[in-house]
């Protein structure tokens, strides 16, 4: 009984903060749009009793989901989000791994400082940081001014409002999520394993490929999911840094809700996005589980 009450708290928490909102969103996705407050129909009217509830359920349908398949905007947006998220995850890995590696190699007394520097950006609002990138990347921005000053370019580069800016924004924002799990895997790596590999005939580089990389695999996987999952549904970065051609599902979702005021379609988009995200989330959890088991030995 005590055990039950103990787990009841987090379960109740999840129920209230996750399941109930999801059910509401799901219900809206099955409704029809309407010029009303709230802007959809039907709404549950309990005063009419049993008949009212039956009526309510009868009016729900999958129409919005079928609609998503008829307009190619949506699946293109999903696909484009997937591509942008995947490419930025890969780029974040390529940038984050060397940083994590350098941190793990640095002298002990330096590590807390380096760790601090990685976490430091979180102390400023995410939104402000993305806005400041607009200042850096715009045609009159710091980057272009600097490049013009050095004479490397004669015309300002168009970076802001393109996918390039979106990649930069995503990489910048999620880099710490990549660095930290990889760093924690590399930090645990026993240096004598690399010496053993060298002793057995590996050069430094082969030792890195055969020992360091496989032993930091869990960190790489964890970091990649931590970047990929939020990047897939990212809305702020594409809408502030991306251009009109940047197609991401988070942006589509926002537009359906606030510009189009079509809550049911927006909800359907959200439900599908959630279903897509569940796959990597489950994979991520399994990876974490495996890692815990391996460490438990």
């Amino acid at each position, binding site marked *: 009984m005590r055990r039950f009450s103990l787990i009841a708290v987090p379960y109740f928490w999840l129920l209230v903060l996750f399941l109930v909102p999801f059910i509401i969103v799901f219900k809206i996705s099955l409704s029809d749009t309407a010029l009303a407050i709230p802007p959809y129909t039907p709404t549950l009217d309990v005063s009419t009793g049993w008949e009212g509830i039956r009526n309510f359920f009868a009016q729900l349908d999958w129409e919005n989901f079928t609609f998503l398949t008829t307009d190619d905007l949506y699946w293109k947006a999903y696909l484009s989000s997937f591509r942008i998220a995947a490419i930025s995850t890969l780029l974040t890995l390529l940038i984050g791994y060397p940083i994590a590696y350098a941190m793990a190699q640095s002298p002990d007394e330096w590590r807390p400082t380096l760790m601090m520097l990685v976490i430091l950006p979180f102390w400023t609002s995410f939104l402000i940081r993305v806005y400041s990138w607009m200042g850096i990347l715009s045609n009159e921005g710091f980057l272009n001014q600097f490049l013009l000053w050095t004479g490397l370019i004669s015309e300002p580069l168009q970076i802001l409002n393109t996918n390039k800016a979106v990649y930069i924004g995503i990489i910048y924002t999620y880099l710490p999520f990549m660095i930290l799990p990889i760093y924690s895997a590399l930090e645990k790596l026993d240096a004598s394993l690399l010496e053993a590999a060298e002793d*057995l005939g590996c050069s430094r580089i082969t030792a890195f490929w055969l020992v360091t990389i496989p*032993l930091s*695999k869990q960190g790489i996987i964890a970091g990649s999911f931590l970047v990929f999952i939020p990047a897939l549904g990212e809305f702020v970065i594409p809408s502030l840094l991306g251009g009109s051609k940047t197609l991401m599902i988070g942006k589509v979702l926002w537009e359906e809700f606030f510009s189009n005021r079509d809550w049911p379609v927006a909800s359907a988009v959200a439900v599908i996005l959630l279903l897509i995200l569940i796959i990597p989330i489950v994979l991520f959890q399994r990876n974490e589980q495996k890692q815990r088991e391996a460490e438990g030995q």
Partner: protein
Amino acid sequence: MAETVFAPWNDDSATPLIQFKNVTKRFGDFVAIDNLTQDIYAQEFFALLGPSGCGKTTMMRMLAGFETPTEGQILIAGQDMAGVPPNKRAVNMMFQSYALFPHLTVAENIAFGLKREGKPKPEIDARVDEMLRLTRLEKFGKRKPHQISGGQRQRVALARSLAKAPKLLLLDEPLGALDKKLRQETQFELMDIQEKTGTTFVIVTHDQEEAMTVASRVAVMDEGRIIQVSTPADIYERPNSVYVADFIGDVNIINGHATRAGDGYDIAYAEGAAKLHAKTSTDLGNEGKCALAIRPEKVSITAKKPAKSVNAVSGKIIDIAYLGNLSTYHVELEGGQMIKAQTANTRRLARRTFTWEDDVWLSWTDTAAIVLEG
């Protein structure tokens, strides 16, 4: 038929496999190895013994190529090792932590070095099987290191380091993580494998018993220097200094003043006490300060003064350490000097002859004690 004793170090014509020539290694201001010169011969089981920080691990790491000497030369099979990286040396090392690759199975661990050589797969498989057999791990080839016991891991590490048939195998505290019983078994296994493979072993250890058991020669180190190199029996019976005598086994050290007498020295160690006599080849001149080292097991303990003994002193039993097979008596002499005497417990404990506070006589022969410079 007399068996030839394996002692290449006494043979002037033998060429050493490893030569340290005036090797000095400094880490900043700290001198880890101090102008060390030492030869190690092929097929030796050479033990580096010393307290932690004495430089024994540094010596081994220089042989493996993980450290380079600050000064001096290291030659392996006549070749200067300066600038040769670890992966280009015919030397393999068994690490103290075993350093088994956790993501590979036992068989893959053993095959690791062979694969780097680019040997054909059937050859590698055959060699891995051979190694598994040698270390009695046939059943565990497919397991991961965390799925086997500590003793098995130790054997995997050994198999992996032997797989490439190195000229020289370095063992860094190989048995440190094993419990005593397993350690003793493994020591004999190590000797057996060393004999079978004919590989030269250099072992680093701080456990003197281990060094004595396995090694053909033991080097006792302190503060970056080798104090004495000799066979285990010599190190024990004829230590060249108080440090070595004290480091290896249990010993009584009596400081005193020596005067030449006959083929040895008479040693005065306390006011009013009869002088002790020891035969020795050590030359201290006509007289001088000295330290007398006597192993506890060479001291007899009796109730009455023995009639014939050259060295006999009386004292009182202060403490008795019961070790099961042996008992060590701590006897305080009249001058306050403590002497340990060890006897085998041939009788049951209840029938022990001596007990606390008993007045006893300790005696030893004139060859039992070693005269060292004080």
